[in-house]
C-alpha cells in the first residue's frame, strides 16, 4: 500500500507537470496574437461569459480575423481543455496517493511533514477544480496552480519523504485529528487563494497599462476585479476554518501539554498568520486602503503560513517537531 502511494504520487506529480505544460501551450498560443475571441466561440470558457461577475477577459481590439489566428485560438482552447482534464486526472491520482498512504499507515494520512504536504496540496488542487467548475473563465490560472503543485509535491518527495509509521502518543487524540484536518483544509484553501491574488496583482498592473515583464503574463488573464473578488472569497472561506483549527489546537495542547497556549514557535507563527490574515480582512474592508495593498497582505499571510510549515520545522525546536524530519 505504501509503495502504491509512492507510485501514485509520482504519477500525480508528472501529470500536474504535463497539465502545466499544456496550460503553458494554451498561454503561448493565446499570446501569438490577440486571439480573435469571437472567432473562437467554441471555446466558451475563453470568453468567460462573465460568470459570477468574474468578467470576460478584456481583449485587445480585434483585427479582422484571419483563419490562421482562429486556428491557433482553437488550438489554445483545446490545450486549455486538455490541461483541465489532466489536472482532474492528477487530482484523482493524488487522492489515490493520500488514501493509500492512510490505509498503509492505518490512520489519517497526516502524521508527518510529508503526509501533511501531500494532503494540503490535495485540498488545494481539489478546491481548484471546484472553483473551475463554477467559473470556467478562470481556467488560465491553472498554469500557476499546477506550477505550485509540481514544486510543492516534488519538494515534499525529495526533502520530507519518510516511511509509513504510527503516530507518537502525543498525537493520538481526537483533537489532533480535528486540529490537523482543519489546518490542512484551511492551508489548502489559503494556498489556492494565493493563485488569484498573484494573478490579480499582475492583471491589475496590466489593466493600468503596465507592459513590463511580470505584467505581460497577465495579458490573457480574467479581469482584475473578478480575480480580486475570488481572492477575497477564498480567504474569507478559509479564515474561520483556520481560526477553528487554531482553537482546536489549543484545546488539544491543553490536554497533551497542560497549557492551551505556550508560545512554542509553531504556535507563535500560527498567531502571526492569524493576525496577518485578520489584517487582510480589515484592509479589504477599509475603503481608503487600495485593493492591491490588501492583496499583498494576503500574500504575506501565506508566506507566514509557509514559514510555519517549512521554516519552523527546520530552524527551531519545539514541542511540535514532527517525527521524521531531521
Amino acid at each position, binding site marked *: 500500500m505504501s509503495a502504491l502511494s509512492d507510485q501514485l504520487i509520482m504519477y500525480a506529480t508528472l501529470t500536474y507537470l504535463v497539465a502545466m505544460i499544456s496550460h503553458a501551450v494554451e498561454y503561448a498560443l493565446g499570446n501569438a496574437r490577440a486571439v480573435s475571441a469571437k472567432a473562437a466561440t467554441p471555446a466558451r470558457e475563453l470568453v468567460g461569459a462573465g460568470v459570477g461577475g468574474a468578467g470576460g477577459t478584456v481583449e485587445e481590439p480585434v483585427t479582422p480575423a484571419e483563419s490562421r489566428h482562429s486556428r491557433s485560438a482553437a488550438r489554445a482552447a483545446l490545450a486549455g481543455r486538455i490541461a483541465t482534464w489532466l489536472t482532474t486526472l492528477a487530482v484523482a491520482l493524488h487522492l489515490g496517493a493520500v488514501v493509500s498512504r492512510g490505509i498503509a499507515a492505518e490512520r489519517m494520512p497526516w502524521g508527518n511533514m510529508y503526509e501533511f504536504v501531500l494532503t494540503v496540496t490535495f485540498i488545494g488542487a481539489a478546491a481548484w477544480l471546484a472553483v473551475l467548475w463554477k467559473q470556467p473563465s478562470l481556467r488560465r490560472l491553472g498554469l500557476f496552480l499546477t506550477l505550485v503543485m509540481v514544486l510543492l509535491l516534488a519538494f515534499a518527495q525529495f526533502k520530507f519523504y519518510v516511511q509509513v509509521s504510527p503516530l507518537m*502518543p502525543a498525537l493520538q487524540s481526537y483533537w489532533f485529528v480535528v486540529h490537523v484536518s482543519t489546518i490542512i483544509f484551511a492551508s489548502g484553501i489559503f494556498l489556492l487563494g494565493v493563485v488569484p491574488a498573484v494573478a490579480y496583482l499582475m492583471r491589475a498592473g496590466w489593466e493600468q497599462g503596465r507592459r513590463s515583464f511580470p505584467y505581460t503574463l497577465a495579458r490573457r488573464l480574467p479581469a482584475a476585479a473578478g480575480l480580486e473578488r475570488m481572492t477575497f472569497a477564498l480567504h474569507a472561506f478559509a479564515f474561520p476554518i483556520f481560526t477553528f483549527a487554531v*482553537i482546536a489546537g489549543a484545546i488539544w495542547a491543553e490536554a497533551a501539554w497542560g*497549557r492551551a497556549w505556550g*508560545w512554542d514557535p509553531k504556535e507563535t507563527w500560527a498567531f502571526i498568520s492569524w493576525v496577518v490574515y485578520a*489584517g487582510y480582512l*480589515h484592509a479589504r474592508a477599509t475603503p481608503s*486602503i487600495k485593493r492591491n495593498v490588501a492583496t499583498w497582505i494576503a500574500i504575506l499571510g501565506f508566506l507566514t503560513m509557509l514559514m510555519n510549515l517549512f521554516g519552523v520545522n527546520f530552524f*527551531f525546536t519545539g514541542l511540535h517537531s514532527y517525527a521524521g524530519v531531521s
Partner: protein
Amino acid sequence: MTTVDERPAAPAGAPRRRVNPVLALLRNSWRQLTSMRTALILLFLLAVAAIPGSVLPQRGVNPENVNRYFIDHPDLAPKLDRIGAFAVFGSIWFSAIYLLLFTSLVGCILPRIRDHLRALRSRPPAAPKRLDRLPQHAVLAAPATADAQAIAAVLRRRRWRVQVRGNEVSAEKGYLKETGNLLFHISLVAVLLGVALGSWYGWHGNRLLVAGAENAFCNTRQQYSEASLGPRVDSADLPPFCLTLDDFHAKFLPSGQPASFRATVTVDEPDGSKRTADFSVNSPLRLGSANVYLLGHGYAPILKYTDRYGRSQTSTVPFLTTGDANLTGEGVAAFPDANVDPKTGKRAPDQQVAFDGLYLPTAPDAAPFVASAFPEERNPAVVLVAYRGNLGLDAGIPGSVYKLDQRQVDNGKLKQLGDKKLGVGEKWTLDDGSTLEFLGTKPYVTLAVRYAPGQSLLLAACVVLLAGLMGSLFGRRRRVWFRVTPPDSGSPTNGSSLVEAGGLPRTEHPGFADEFAQLVAAVRDDERGAGRAREGVE
C-alpha cells in the same frame, strides 16, 4: 430616516464654541487611535513583535536554551535580556502593542454597538423617490388588487424585516453581519480577559515523581522543582492533595517509537478521600483543584552502597533522560553519609562517595556503553564512575541533585576511582573494600501540575468568536423596496397595478441580483395567485 451604518464623524450637534485645545487634542488622538488604519498598523506591529519570540529562546518555553544562549553569546545576551527579548510575550513593548490594540478595539466597537442597537430597533427606511436609480430595479404589472400588505407578507415569509408605509414596502435583511462582527470583536476582549484571569489566579509547578509510596508528593510550593504562582495566588492557596505513583507503563514499537503511556496513581484528595486513577499523555488527571499532566518518563536505578565499615545505604536516583529516543539516562548517586566511623561516630568529610554516569535501559551487546539501544528495559545496565572525597555539599554551595559539583573535582578534593558497567544484581568492589550493587530500577514520571482559571471563559469566548466571525464574513446586509401604483393613477397598464421594485446591497454581495430577481418573481407569483383567487370569488 438616517442610515446608521456610517459612524457619525464627530459627536454631533454640539453648538460651536471654543474648544479647549487639550480636549481637542485628546479627542483627536482618540479618534486616531480608534480608526481602522491604526487598528491595522497595530495588528502588524503585533505580528512583527511576535517574531523574535519564535527566533530567540524564551524563558517560558525553554529556560535551558536561554541559558545556553547566554553562554554562546555572552555580549549580546544581556543586552537582549534587558529589552525583554527572552520573554517577548510578557515584555513591556509587546504588552503595550496589544493593550493599545485592545483599547482601539473597544473604542471602535462601543460606538458601533450603540449604533447597531439603534439600527436593530429602528424600521427599514422609506423608499427613495427614484427606485430606478438603485443597483437593482424591476417593474412588473400586477393585478389591480395588488397591495402593499400582500407584498409585505411575502417578504416576511422570507424573513425580511418589513415596514409598510401606505403603498410602499421597505424591507431590510442581514443585520446578522454587524451583530456577528460585534460579537466577534467583543469575544476577542473576552479572550484577553480569560488569559488575564488565568495568569493572575493560576499557578503551575513541575516535578519528577518516582514510583513508590515512600516517594509520594504533596502539593506544596517546596515540593516543586519549578513553580510559578500568579500574582494573586499565595503559597498557602495551593490545594492540599497528594500523589503517589503506583505504576507506569510504556509500550514501544519495534522501531523504538513510543506507542502508548499510562501512569497509575493514588490520589489523596484534600477532603481526605483516597482513590486510584490512570492518566496519560492527552488525557490528564483532572482533580477538582488542579490538573496533572504527564510530560515525560524515565528510570530511577536503585543503588546499594556498602561502606568500608559494612554499613549500607540504598538510594533510588532518577537518571534524567538525555533527550535520545532510547531513554539513555544521566545522573548521580551521592552518599554523603558514607564511611562514618562506627567507633567515633564522626563523619569523614573526605570519605564521601558518589557515582556519576549513565543508565541504559538496553545496553548494547558490546562497548562503547554510551547510549541505550532501546527504550524498554531489555538489558538494563548502569555505567558509572566512582568518586571519593569531599562532595562539597557541606560548603553551603547549592548544587544540583542531578550533577556532581565539578569544582570539587577540579580542585582535587574529589578523586576519581575508576569506572564500571553493572548489570542488575552485579556488584562492584572498590579499592577500599566498599561495594556498590545495582539492584534494579523504578520508573519515574515528570509531571506538570496546573491550575488555570478562566479556561471556561476562554472556551465560551472562542465559540462566540467563531459564530460571530461566520456571521460577519458571510452575512449580507441588503434592502429592497416595493412601490404599488394603483391603476387609476394614470398608469399605462390599463386595469392593472404597477409594482416597482428596487434593491440595494449594503455590503458586497455578488449574488444579490439573483436574490432580487427571485424575490420579484415570488412577489409577482403571489400577486397573480392572489389576484386569481380574488377574481374567482368575486
